[in-house]
């Protein structure tokens, strides 16, 4: 941007024409790029700055903008001393792990299998796995409500009929399980929906990562007598590391911003013992039901700090080599 290539290879001076040509040359690029920046300023930068401003004020969304009262850092200390805030953070972390780990543990081998084993049906199978990701959450929730329902659910009906099987039946519960209404089951149930929904997305990421691995490496390994699982262990996994880093980072951010699934599956209430209350849900509740915009804004910043720290840790864990850039450059 600072050194246009024109300076390196001198060109004959441009004959001076009218101001319009000059104007075009100078400003047209800025005008062409302005739509993005205008939209970004209005819908990206402004909300962030306004949120920062809000976080040090006391304000109820129902009263005018003139009613804001400066309160300093009180909103932050209030959040940090609020047991429910910490509970929501704990829930979010548990849900992020419960839903995040299985996603990747399923997606990587799945992508490997699809990449290796399927040739013609590959895109079709990939599309099917990707389908949940583009389906509306509300539609998904309706389906899972009928699956999870305590009295009328498909899941309980299935478990119940499995329980009728002699001998093996002991392994399955005799009573109906209240999946979304019992403390112990709320989080796993929500996590299950998230895993189901995002496995396809992660698989797609890994698939593109796998396709970037040159086929000669596998051929060479095969010539050396490596089995499929050895190929996976010694070629696929190390070379997939940058993709894993990306996918895990995205899951981490997504997991900590979890809102839709737990909100709908607990009817917005957070479920028994607030086990399904995530931080974003609590933030929404603080703004929407408690009418405390400043407190909610401060909560958003605290969550931002948490996500930022975790991304740093993730970066550290996968090492700089994880991104594949530094060592390659050296």
């Amino acid at each position, binding site marked *: 941007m600072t050194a246009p290539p024109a300076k390196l290879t001198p060109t004959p001076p441009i004959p001076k024409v009218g101001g319009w040509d000059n104007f075009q040359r100078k400003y047209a690029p800025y005008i062409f790029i302005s739509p993005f920046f205008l939209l970004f300023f209005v819908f990206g930068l402004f909300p962030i700055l306004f949120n920062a401003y809000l976080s040090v004020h006391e304000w*109820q*969304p*129902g*009263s*005018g*903008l*003139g*009613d804001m009262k400066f309160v300093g850092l009180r909103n932050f200390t209030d959040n940090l*001393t*609020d*047991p*429910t805030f910490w509970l929501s953070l704990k829930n979010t972390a548990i849900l992020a792990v419960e839903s995040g780990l299985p996603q990747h543990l399923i997606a990587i081998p799945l992508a490997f299998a699809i990449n290796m084993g399927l040739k013609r049906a590959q895109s079709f199978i990939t599309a099917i796995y990707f389908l949940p990701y583009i389906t509306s959450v509300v539609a998904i929730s*309706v389906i899972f*409500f*009928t699956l999870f*329902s*305590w*009295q*009328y659910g498909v899941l309980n009906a299935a478990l119940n009929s499995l329980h009728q099987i002699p001998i093996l039946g002991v392994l399955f519960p005799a009573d109906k399980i*209240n999946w979304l*209404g*019992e*403390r112990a089951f709320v989080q796993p149930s929500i996590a299950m929906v998230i895993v189901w929904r995002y496995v396809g997305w992660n698989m797609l990421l890994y698939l593109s990562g796998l396709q970037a691995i040159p086929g000669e490496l596998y051929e060479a390994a095969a010539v050396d007598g490596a089995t499929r699982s050895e190929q996976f262990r010694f070629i696929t996994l190390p070379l997939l590391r940058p993709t894993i880093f990306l996918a895990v980072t995205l899951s981490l951010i997504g997991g900590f911003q979890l809102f839709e699934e737990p909100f709908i599956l607990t*009817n917005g*209430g*957070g479920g*028994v*013992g*607030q086990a399904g209350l995530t931080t974003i849900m609590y933030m929404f*509740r603080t703004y929407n*039901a*408690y*009418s405390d915009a400043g407190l909610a804004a401060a909560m958003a910043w605290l969550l931002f700090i948490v996500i930022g720290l975790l991304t740093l840790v993730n970066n550290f864990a996968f090492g700089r080599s994880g991104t594949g850039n530094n060592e390659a450059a050296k």
Partner: protein
Amino acid sequence: MKIQRLFVAAALLSVSLAAAQKTTLTIGVFPDLDSVVKAALPGFNKLYPDIDVKINSLAYADHHNALTTALSTGKGANDVEAIDFGYVAKFAEGNGMTDLSKAPYNAGALASKFVGFTFPQATTQDGRIVAMPTDIGPGSMFYRTDLLAKAGVKPSQLNASWDSYITNGKKVVAANPGTFLIPDASEAAQIILRTGLKAGDGLYFDKSNKVLISPDNARFVKAFTVAKQIRDAKLDAKAGGAFSPEWTTAFQKGNLATEFSGAWLVGHMQNWLAKDFTGKWNAQNLPGNTFASWGGSFYGIPTQSANKDAAWKLVQYLTTNAAQQVLAFKTTGAFPALKAGQTDAVFNQGVVYLGNQKARLLWRTAAAKIQPLDVNKLDPIADQIVSDALGSVLDGSKDIPTALADAQRLVERRTR
């Protein structure tokens, strides 16, 4: 030629003058209130031909979100806004809504014309009246006559007291395998919390903002105890709140013996919720001689409105005109908040869905007995915390004194 031009000019002038005299008023509503307002307009325009009313109807949640935004930014609100009961407290804080207790409105003088509990709902702690009540949801106990008959239980045995509700409820469930007495045990607690309050007390706070939630408060202890007894006797369907999927399915399958709700539930039951059970549901008063209300709607005037005079005329017409209140009841079943709206002959007619029971008379009497509750701006927070505490008691993870003490602490740290 010239004369002709002059004539045209004069004609144009007179048209524009007439237009200038006509005030255009906007009113923001949500379904079904939009049908009520639509039905009201012919009558309103007969009285005020110079006021044009434009209805802006949005879905329930969208309407209230749009209103929040309009009040926050000071722009874009309608001249009259419908506000559901659940949102009144929220809009009462701040200065977005016109204080109707002041001149020229003097709404306070109208309070005696309305069912007693309605005005305190829209009155702030500092005495401002932010909205006028238009319809109410007097609560009653709905019950399945066939299920009760099979168990040989009379409705009067169910609602004599909370104890007899539980004892006889067990008989009903035992006689009808697969059914539940009530969708959720917490409903009983919510009703008990709303009864037996001292004058001037709110649900969770007293007049001086002191938190009433405590292991020593008999009202809270009783509410939690009764709910816990219902849960422990396995009488409830653990369906959570009304309109949850579990709640809906239980209704549609006909697996519920009783439900506590507002009179408006009949409309839902006959239209979609329990269509197949026409004539099998009936209504009685809530157990233990208690009275409570479920929801209700209000009309308010945002301070940013430029047509407050005309807006007030419309609000008055919608809320204080008896004929209009009766019309609203006939249009959508919105139960009049205006006492004079409850004397029409239609109240003596039987309700077809309820097997022609004259339930409206029951609701009218019940409405008059509902206790007024003083609202506090922290009510939504306390509400959430108390229902969480109740959830912990119901699933056995906390005992009642601990849960109440924890809830008390959580609410107290919010007061300052």
